């Protein structure tokens, strides 16, 4: 274990969903994250962008408490849920069972059905995960995350394996679910348009810290043809080194 780890879990909703001070993560000699600060307000939708290999997934894993070998101060909401790039459903459990896996008490089928209905999978409650399409599996994983009523939802490129059209549908679904549940979201994505369509705030990770942090003050639902959208898009792309 690294030295100087302070890890607290917040109890009240009034404090931030994420509060990180001076976070550093090394792999060998190389600091992938160095002295990073980040706050996310409750209910805020934050998109995190950055070049491949810059440490986005590493940061997300730390916030999910999957990576404990860090130094710095990390405070996160106690109720968290994570969505990965792959759905990571247990193949040996029926879809509904996957959704409520890990919840205290007896597996509550009604609760699973309600969550699956919310993501449009009411007809897939009783099947094995192997028969789900890629998009359906990812939606089931989303239902599994939201059934935990998280205050913080961490998503690591959840739609990057989906085709362009399914991705747009899934994006609409996340928007809708976020508005309904009101949890803070940290979404890692490579898709600038996706970030601008969903987020209140976009971050770009650079050199192991947050190099760019800007609010997205656009009306919802977002309009891609809006000149302000286009301006932000150009700015973000420039930030990411694409011209």
């Amino acid at each position: 274990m690294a030295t100087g780890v302070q890890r607290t879990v917040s109890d009240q909703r009034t404090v931030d969903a994420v509060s990180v001070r001076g976070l550093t993560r090394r792999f060998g000699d190389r600091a992938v994250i160095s002295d990073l600060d980040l706050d996310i307000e409750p209910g805020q939708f934050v998109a995190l962008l950055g070049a491949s290999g810059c440490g986005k997934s590493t940061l997300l894993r730390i916030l999910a408490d999957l990576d404990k070998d860090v130094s710095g101060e990390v405070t996160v909401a106690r109720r968290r849920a994570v969505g990965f790039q792959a759905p990571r459903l247990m193949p040996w459990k029926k879809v509904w069972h996957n959704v409520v896996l890990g919840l205290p008490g007896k597996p509550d089928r009604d609760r699973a059905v309600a969550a699956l209905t919310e993501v449009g999978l009411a007809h897939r409650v009783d099947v094995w995960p192997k028969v789900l399409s890629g998009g359906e599996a990812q939606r089931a994983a989303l239902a599994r995350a939201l059934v935990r009523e998280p205050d913080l939802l961490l998503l690591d490129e959840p739609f990057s394996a989906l085709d362009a059209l399914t991705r747009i549908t899934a994006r609409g679904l996340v928007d809708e679910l976020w508005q309904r549940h009101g949890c803070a979201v940290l979404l890692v994505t490579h898709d600038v348009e996706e970030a601008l369509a969903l987020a209140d705030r976009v971050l770009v990770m650079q050199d192991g810290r947050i190099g760019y942090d800007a609010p997205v003050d656009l009306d919802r639902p977002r309009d891609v043809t809006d000149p302000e959208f286009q301006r932000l898009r150009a700015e973000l792309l420039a930030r990411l080194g694409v011209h």
Partner: protein
Amino acid sequence: MTTTPERTRVQPPPSAVETVTLASERDRRPGRVPRWVLKTISPIALIVLWQVLSSVGVLDTDTLASPVTVAETAAGMWQDGSLQSAVLTSVLRVLAGLAFGIVAAVVLATLAGLFRRGEDIIDAPMQMLRTVPVIGLIPLLIIWFGIGETPKIVLVGLAVTFPLYINLYSGIRNTDSTLIEASETLGLGWFGQVRHVILPSAMPQFLTGLRYALGTAWLALVFGETINATSGIGYEMNKAREFFATDVIIVCLVLYAILGLVADMIVRGLERGLLSWRPAFSGQ
């Protein structure tokens, strides 16, 4: 790459494309030979050939009894009850050995699979011992346990333990770490992870091990019973050898084969029931 303004075709466009038919009405035509018929044709043909060779005299009856004689002998053994009691004795021995072997393998493999300390203490000796041919232990077992039921049950138990242990251990160790990670974020504790992730994921390999173990169990039993026994299929076979009764020997071999098949069918049934979640290839 350089492109010329006017693209020239090297070849003229083909006037016809070669095609293959992937699906057509013809495939769905009823009246094709069912698979079970195809599966039974060749064994039946073999038995007919054997009978013909015996009847014609190519196969000497002292060398190998004919299928008809074998069937008559089996019927006789059924009527005097010796067949049933031999089968019962042998099956009970296998079941007892299997029970011991399964318990031992599950306990050892779970400890070795789940705990580093367990691996250090258990796995190395198990890997060493598994290279010892179980059959070679018979003399020792006789010295230790005499010639009663115990050495036979221990022999079967040992024969079962190793393949089961190896498979369950590697099944546990091959659990997808991304699923374990996911289960951690779902709030499953250690016990929940073992129960909902690690053991289910090891189940396919455990059943593979079980199928293999059943095979070795019968093998061990054949050896155990032919070397010294006063009852059981192997004993009947050994007794028949002294009288050159090839018909009885064949009956016993067929019994072993049938019991092996039944055991295999039970494991297949277990696999169908327990592994229906698996996207497996089942052949054409």
